[in-house]
């Protein structure tokens, strides 16, 4: 189980009946392939093999999508000399899901050096995915050398500023944010005033029962600032989402799964499809972590997210590539 206990903050502010011990026990199972479903304020867990037992199955209006992240196409050092192979394995994993996802979210670092052939290679590999729509947000690697010009040329249609946007799918409001532009010396991820103002107005008129999914590359919450794992103005963005009953924040960047719940907001980071990184403070630096070959694919993965209408449930399931 990747998430550290002290990141699993759970305060019963909302008196919604979530039992802390039960939640932690549930989250412990999630690392081995379980689904934790919040249904009417009560958490239940189901092992991946018994997904058909889920409360409402896939009734009309329900849907699922998959988050992948940090494919780092072009990386070829010791930690993984076949990022093409592991991305293909991720696609195969997605294609083998019992219910095909509606679309993919790629939370950035698509490329390793923002080269055209790297973006091309990812596009080519994702063509064989059963989900044909992919929504992207950039990582800092995608902005190398040209402040994101190439990335925005390819993926920035209908986006604003450095590439932020929102869209709706079956009543769920999705917001893609960019926190890797104009990074300052000594700083963390950064959204900037223009994007924050846009976000505030984008969600202002939505009813508080609208489920919200925010996705951005660098974690919007402070995972480990010493390693740049956080966003300087992330808290301000989250303040605009306080009124909503269900907010899910999906991030990448740290190349490991981690989860935190704070009130109505569930934070989740995805594994990379390229290489793992050490847990906070467990190494000198947050660089690629070399592991024995047979262990590599257990530390890479995809995230399947199921929206089950009427149950206030957004079930987030990580699975590795083995």
């Amino acid at each position, binding site marked *: 189980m990747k998430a550290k206990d002290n990141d699993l903050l759970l305060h019963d502010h909302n008196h919604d009946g979530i039992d802390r011990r039960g939640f932690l026990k549930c989250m412990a199972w999630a690392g081995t392939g379980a689904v934790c479903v919040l249904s009417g304020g009560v958490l239940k867990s189901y092992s991946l093999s018994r997904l058909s037992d889920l409360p409402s199955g896939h009734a009309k209006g329900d849907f699922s999508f998959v988050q992948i992240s940090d494919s780092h196409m072009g990386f070829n*050092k*010791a*930690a993984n000399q076949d990022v093409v192979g592991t991305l293909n394995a991720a696609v195969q994993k997605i294609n083998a899901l019992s219910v095909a996802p509606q679309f993919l979210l790629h939370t950035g670092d698509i490329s*390793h*050096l*923002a080269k055209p052939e790297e973006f091309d290679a990812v596009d080519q590999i994702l063509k064989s995915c059963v989900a044909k729509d992919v929504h992207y947000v950039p990582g*800092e*690697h995608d902005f*190398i*050398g040209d402040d994101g010009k190439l990335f925005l040329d390819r993926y920035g249609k209908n986006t604003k500023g450095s590439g932020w946007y929102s869209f709706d799918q079956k009543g769920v409001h999705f917001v893609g944010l960019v926190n890797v532009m104009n*990074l*300052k*010396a*000594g*700083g*963390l991820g950064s959204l900037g005033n223009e994007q924050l103002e846009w976000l505030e107005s984008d969600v202002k008129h939505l009813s508080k029962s609208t489920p919200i999914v925010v996705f951005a590359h660098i974690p919007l919450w402070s995972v480990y*600032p*010493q*390693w*740049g794992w956080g966003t300087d103005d992330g808290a301000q963005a989250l303040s605009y989402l306080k009124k909503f009953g269900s907010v899910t924040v999906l991030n990448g960047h740290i190349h490991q799964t981690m989860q935190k719940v704070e009130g109505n907001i569930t934070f989740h980071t995805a594994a990379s499809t390229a290489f793992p990184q050490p847990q906070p403070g467990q190494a*000198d*630096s*947050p*660089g*690629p972590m070399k592991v024995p070959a047979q262990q590599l694919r257990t530390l890479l993965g995809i995230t399947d997210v199921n929206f089950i209408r009427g149950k206030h449930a957004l079930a987030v399931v990580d699975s590795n590539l083995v």
Partner: protein
Amino acid sequence: MKRKLELRITVFAIALLGLATIARVSTVHGQTATKSGSEVKIDNFTFAPQDLTVPAGTSVRWVNRDDIPHTVVSDDKTTFKSKALDTDDSFSYTFTKPGTYSYFCSIHPKMTAKVIVQ
């Protein structure tokens, strides 16, 4: 006979002079090379040394030994700005004016360091 000897001595002398000239140029070049050699090693998300003090006119060379790309960018983002340096790539900048030049990696902005030019 004597003329041939004179000729050989002359040719030999010219050759010696030529060699001496080359040697002097090499020595001068060697001295210049030693003076301009100041290197910063990038590894483990760190610039080493983090504080580098050099005399004005020094050309500083950064070499990336990490397994992840980094950049070398002055804090003001204009004084100097390298392209992305992958493993074993290098970047050089000549500091002509005295001052303190803070810089960082624009990909991983928590990586900061400075060059103090005296």
